[in-house]
């Protein structure tokens, strides 16, 4: 996060976008060139990486992420909070689509890989410049969502959570590293409001079955009906909005989705 985000006034002196010598940004579109932000597909969710973590949700600085919408660092308690979280947002495809589909909603992407997070930052900044007034509601943060989700979101804060094409961690001994697991679902249920929706999709059949099974077994989630899935405009984005999803479609692969609603447990 740090220094880069303090440059929230986009003036020509802003090195990141206007510096002619900077090859990582496409001069004409102002958008970052993906090839300079390539990273390994996998990152180790267990290692204690070196990035700042907010002490609590009240320490999340909204003015850094959404400078136009929430310019003041000190604000009243009744301001709009982040409602959508894209966990493992990759190169930001879903966030970008959601930002214009839900212009009134604040959303954030969480990504573990440093370079990829940088790419998404640049992408959002570039889009904000290219389309004034738009994309002010989307942001990204580098963090380990498996450890730090409660640091970012209060109880019942989110209305949507996305887990698109997560790392399958094929070996059984690594299943505990999966981002959807019975234990982690407790935390996701905590940050989701009652009625909030969790969207998952993968092209790995075994992982798809695993995620669905975890969600079905969890007392605080119930599946959406076919009708509800049809009616939700977001569902179509799961397989089309991201680079990963587009790659799968290009290769003619199948996808497996599980979309569930957070409910009050019956006991």
């Amino acid at each position: 996060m740090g220094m880069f985000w303090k440059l929230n006034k986009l003036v020509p002196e802003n090195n990141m976008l206007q510096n002619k010598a900077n090859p990582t940004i496409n001069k004409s579109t102002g958008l970052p060139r993906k090839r300079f932000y390539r990273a390994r597909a996998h990152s180790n969710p267990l290692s204690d990486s070196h990035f700042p973590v907010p002490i609590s949700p009240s320490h999340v600085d909204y003015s850094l992420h959404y400078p136009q919408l929430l310019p003041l660092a000190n604000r009243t308690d009744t301001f709009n909070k982040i409602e959508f979280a894209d966990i493992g947002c990759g190169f930001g495809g879903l966030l970008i689509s959601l930002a214009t589909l839900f212009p009134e909603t604040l959303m954030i992407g969480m990504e573990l890989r440093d370079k990829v997070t940088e790419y998404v930052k640049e992408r959002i900044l570039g889009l904000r410049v290219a389309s004034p007034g738009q994309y002010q509601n989307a942001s990204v943060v580098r963090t380990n969502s498996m450890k730090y989700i409660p640091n970012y979101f209060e109880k019942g804060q989110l209305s949507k959570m996305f887990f698109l094409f997560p790392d399958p961690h094929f070996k059984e001994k690594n299943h505990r590293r999966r981002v959807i697991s019975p234990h982690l679902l407790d935390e996701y249920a905590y940050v989701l409001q009652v009625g909030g929706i969790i969207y998952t999709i993968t092209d790995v059949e075994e992982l798809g079955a695993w995620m669905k099974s975890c969600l079905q077994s969890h007392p605080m989630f119930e599946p959406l009906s076919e009708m509800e899935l049809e009616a939700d405009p977001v569902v179509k984005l799961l397989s089309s909005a991201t680079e990963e999803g587009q790659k799968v479609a290009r290769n003619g692969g199948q996808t497996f989705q599980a979309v569930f609603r957070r409910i009050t447990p019956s006991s």
Partner: protein
Amino acid sequence: MEDSRIEECEHDNSNTQEDAQVEESEQNNKDMEVAPALISVHPTQNSVAVAVGSDLRVFDLLDNCAVTLVDESGGASHNDSIRCIKYGTNGKLFVSAGDDKLVKVWSTDCWRCISTVISEKRVSAVAISNDGLHVCFADKFGVVWVVDLPGFDGTEAPLNKKAAPLLAHYCSIITSLEFSPDGRFIVSADRDFKIRVTVFPTKPLNGAHEIQSFCLGHTEFVSCLAFISAPDSPQGFLVSGGGDSTVRMWDIISGTLLDTCEVGAKVELIESDATEANCLTITDICTIPDCNLIAVAIQSLRGIMLLTCDLPSRTLSVTKVVSITGENFVPTSLGSSISGGLLWMVTGASKLRGSDISSLSRVKAVSGFNKSSPGAPEQEPVVLIDTEIPGGAKLLEKLQGSMSIDEKVFLAAADAVKTAMCNLLIKKQYTDEKREFRKRTRNDKKNTQ
């Protein structure tokens, strides 16, 4: 898709990863093996238990005699350092667990081991539900397990039950586990500065999925938890101590931080030999019932700090420091009973490098706490001399292993415990160079296709 290898994970105990970084971690492992002495007191002070290393020592205060533990497994009950001990609030049960991956549940009537549960990983915290029907234990990988105990009369054969996972803190060492006074919630604290409050369900074996709140505010690992009973709130107030030298008070229903007491800063004013100002971890906290007092053990402090909890304003303040004079006594663990009015303390450690003595402990007690009831006589807390302690010489001989030990050894013990805790719980900060070096030397065989 290829699967990535673990780069570094100090607390991942699975075999394949421990081959890496052997030289560095071996040094740390030796330091981490040092186990602090622990003390726990029966709720109505029927007995006192001390654990040093693998040794569990219990003294019966009712019969005024040392207890012989009865364990079907034969030989020493535990094979490796005991890391946590606790009495259940109804006084009938006692649990001990640690590095040997065994959780032993004892009946406090006959001191027989009524159940041994095998854990996959080393155990770092234990708790017994208030109704005595469940025992929970947490491992160093962040999973809290639960096992049920049928109502028993102490004469049944030890059952070796299999535990079910209750909840998990993702990949974080759980340092403390406590039930709220009304039994509705189980609170777990971890190395990643977090405290999680979870609804304890009617059927715990199916998991505890409903998180009530997170108590977030500590800026270092959370080391210990305790509850203060309050007449108006059945769930009481939670107090926690951490590696950030603070004691904090919480409302567990909302997760709100009610007050923070900068305890470490106050210690620096008192103790001039506190050389590392930034690592004054709160070693243990213990509430003294009926007094609204919290006793705090802090690294380097030879004595305890007493905090008063003012319930109406929901604040904490330092009332007093009770110093132990005449000997080098830095408590490693505190305990109190509900009725006894005494604060029990122990210092000591096991597996000290370079020491001939394999495990040593020294027990002391403090009395004279002002009850918060009106009309109670004004008193000053005073450290009892050996002959004034309930059980006297007999108790000390049993719990300490001997009556007197060279003082220098205790200082070494306190230091070793401090180092061990830091190594285990404080995250290593690498410079960018060092991190890149570690990445380069990692064993990451890529399949070139």
